[in-house]
């Protein structure tokens, strides 16, 4: 890609915007809304993290020390809901808001008022969700999977959780619609789909996943609500219903949800690794097709979350084979990322460090995922700490490290300042080391027979639980560096150039740092593909 003319950067006088609270409450600007989403996600990350630390503190030693079992169960439930719906998903929508218009040459998102609305639903949703911890009967203690009949034993927390999920779902669906409409309508005229940056591609697919499955979750939790309050018997065997049906419906949502959490991370890693290898992404088309295949497969593997529920042999075989198939496109992605670094010119700034940790540690999560797909072995792994280790490897060094790579990659663009690289490198090493101290021993615990979701355990599990808890506190405390580094960078620092990184490549780097309030008021003239000629990351202007 190459521009045919220098971009006019004199946007300053257009940037009239309200100040104070009303700027944030009524904003329809994609950057402001992106900032709101990211800030919200960061707050939720620390709330969810605090819950995790309470859990790990209780598990430091056998015996019940600080929590009663009901509170423990409520904490595991809300830790998951807060991290998934409060931290990771809003963070991705925040990235989408900031980056998609800048990356496709559009001035803003297509539906700015809906954009404002979809964000401002979230504080209400999470007031309900977190408030449920303090009502009579305690918080929702049936696990984030909300399996009936157990989840129906909840007290007043059940309707609060259900309505919170409805609101989060509405917010996500609106965000997804906005993203699809923006990408399909507002990208540059000559930007074909196979010229979209990978981050935009992964978000386009993620948005379709969201629209497909969030209503399914909404339906499932609504049935819980009517079973509890209005005398229906969807999930009650005694009334002719089927408790297992809930699990099928839930995981039909739940498995695509896993990819909703991690596909945008694939996108960010696909931007960061080429930038710091100073080389284009290897096998761009294959990467796009791999993401699409993963998204398709995600709809036909759901029952691998419930192999122990007792399914016909044929169904077990089908779900085993379809699950194993996911390893193929995922493998293609890992191989292509590796090939991108091959014969590159690598440097190791913080975004690249986080992307590399993603590459290694997400692969470990992929390997344990492959093991879990083997149904007979899964009969032993299911509902143990092995599963806990697996999905935390996929979600923490996967989704969360992807978010961190993205923030460290684009932060200088957003703020116009360089951040403290030394401190960010510290943040990386502390995170990368302690995330392993935290989660790797959980593989051992699971294989040795420790079930998940228990507040107290047999004494032979003590040692690795202690190691895991040490890792948890060290990992959790190191994360305090993250908002500090961001805050410092927002306040000031060395002026960032427009390119920021030597190998950065893409439309966003043609804008000044920080970019004008409205990104591309005049569409830039860019050539793609064959017309653009030789790839040269330095010839951007």
């Amino acid at each position: 890609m190459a521009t045919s003319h220098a971009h006019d950067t004199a946007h300053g006088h257009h940037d009239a915007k309200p100040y104070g609270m009303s700027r944030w409450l009524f904003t329809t600007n994609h950057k402001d809304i992106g900032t709101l989403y990211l800030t919200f996600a960061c707050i939720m990350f620390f709330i969810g993290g605090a819950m995790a630390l309470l859990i790990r503190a209780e598990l430091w030693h056998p015996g019940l020390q600080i929590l009663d079992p009901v509170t423990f169960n409520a904490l595991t439930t809300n830790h998951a809901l807060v991290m998934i719906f409060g931290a990771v998903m809003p963070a991705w929508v925040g990235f989408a808001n900031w980056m998609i218009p800048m990356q496709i040459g559009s001035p803003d998102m297509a539906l700015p008022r809906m954009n404002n609305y979809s964000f401002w639903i979230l504080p209400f949703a999470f007031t309900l969700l977190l408030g449920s911890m303090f009502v009579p009967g305690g918080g929702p203690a049936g696990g984030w999977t909300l399996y009936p009949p157990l989840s129906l034993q909840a007290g007043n927390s059940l309707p609060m959780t259900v309505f919170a999920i409805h609101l989060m779902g509405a917010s996500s669906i609106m965000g997804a619609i906005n993203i699809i409409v923006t990408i399909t309508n507002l990208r540059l005229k000559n930007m074909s789909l196979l010229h979209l940056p990978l981050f935009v591609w992964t978000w386009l697919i993620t948005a379709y996943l969201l629209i497909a499955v969030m209503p399914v979750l909404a339906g499932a939790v609504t049935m819980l609500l009517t079973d509890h309050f209005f005398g229906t018997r969807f999930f009650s065997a005694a009334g002719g219903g089927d408790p297992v049906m809930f699990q099928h419906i839930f995981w039909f949502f739940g498995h695509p949800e896993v990819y909703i959490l991690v596909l945008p991370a694939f996108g960010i890693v696909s931007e960061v690794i080429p930038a710091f290898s100073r080389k284009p992404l290897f096998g761009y088309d294959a990467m796009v097709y791999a993401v699409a295949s993963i998204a398709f497969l995600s709809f036909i593997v759901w029952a691998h979350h419930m192999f122990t529920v007792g399914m016909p042999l044929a169904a077990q075989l089908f779900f085993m084979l379809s699950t194993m198939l996911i390893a193929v496109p995922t493998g293609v992605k890992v191989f292509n990322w590796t090939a991108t670094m091959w014969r590159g010119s690598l440097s190791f700034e913080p975004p690249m460090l986080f992307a590399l940790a993603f590459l290694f540690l997400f692969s470990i999560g992929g390997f344990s995922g492959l093991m879990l797909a083997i149904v007979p072995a899964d009969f032993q792994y299911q509902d143990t700490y092995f599963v806990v280790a697996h999905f935390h490897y996929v979600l923490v060094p996967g989704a969360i490290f992807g978010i961190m790579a993205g923030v460290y990659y684009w932060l200088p663009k957003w703020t116009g300042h360089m951040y403290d690289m030394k401190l960010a490198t510290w943040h990386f090493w502390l995170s990368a080391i302690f995330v392993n101290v935290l989660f790797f021993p959980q593989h051992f615990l699971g294989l040795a027979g420790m079930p998940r979701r228990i507040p107290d355990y047999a004494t032979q599990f003590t040692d690795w639980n202690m190691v895991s808890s040490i890792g948890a506190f060290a990992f959790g405390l190191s994360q305090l560096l993250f908002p500090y580094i961001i805050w410092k960078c927002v306040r000031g620092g060395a002026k960032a150039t427009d390119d920021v990184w030597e190998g950065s490549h893409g439309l966003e780097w043609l804008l000044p740092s920080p970019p004008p309030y409205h990104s591309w008021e005049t569409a830039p003239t860019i050539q793609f593909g064959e017309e653009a000629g030789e790839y040269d990351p330095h010839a951007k202007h």
Partner: protein
Amino acid sequence: MSKKRWLVAGGSIAAAVAGLAGPAFAGWDGLNMTKGVTELSEKIYDLHMLIFEVCLVIAAIVFGAMIYALVRFRKSKGAVADTSHVHSTAYEIAWTLLPVAILIAMAVPAARALVVIEDTRNSELTIKVTGYQWKWQYDYLDSGVSFFSTLAESSNFARERGSGIDPNTVENYLLEVDQHVVIPVDTKVRVLLTANDVIHAWWVPALGMKKDAIPGFVNEIWIKAHALGTYRGQCAELCGRDHGFMPIVVDVVSKEDFNHWVEVHKAPAETVPAAPQAQAAPADAAATPTSSTNR
């Protein structure tokens, strides 16, 4: 040039890891899955080790390539990017097809094992297990023996907050019950699983299988243990407040001891079928006859 050297190095690392890992990991107690004492648990263990070793070999090759790239292609060492290296149909086809072949190779033994696991025919004894919040009920359908099994008193006192009892001083903390399940050795035992309130899961690692106990459903598994001993497990599906406190203890005894145990427990079960009575019956010598304790 360097490509060949790396292939040799990667290959030998992979071989070394695979060669060492098998025996080494198998011997590390508390780090790996138990091999267990049943036909199925051994099959499952073998599958687990096979897929684990396959993963280790793939990991050695993939991580080897990544690490090589990180070392060899550093800008600080003067590496210059080859920006034309963006696509290779041959490689891309290879690294799509190779994983498919590996997966098929894995799926075959897994499917074979699954067929055996699901075959509950020709059992000699049937036990119905019912999950309750938070205890298990066992009904021996052939002989009418029936009892509840709940967390042992010693663990139950120690687990209270502020009990002042160090769990390390309690024998088999959280893994002991008032009444053990007793099954005969070398006998195909069919276990029917259901629940009375919420979903539970019955799991004894050494016996290999875990399956959900669901209200309104009857699931089945089978066990054929070949070693005498006491084997311990826990409920594996979140079932509310005391999910962590409804263990399972199974004694595998000789066929004679088992018949004796049935005779002793049959009488009270016939006259007073109500479970609390059976629960009150002494957990006598027959229930704790054997030597080794499985962790």
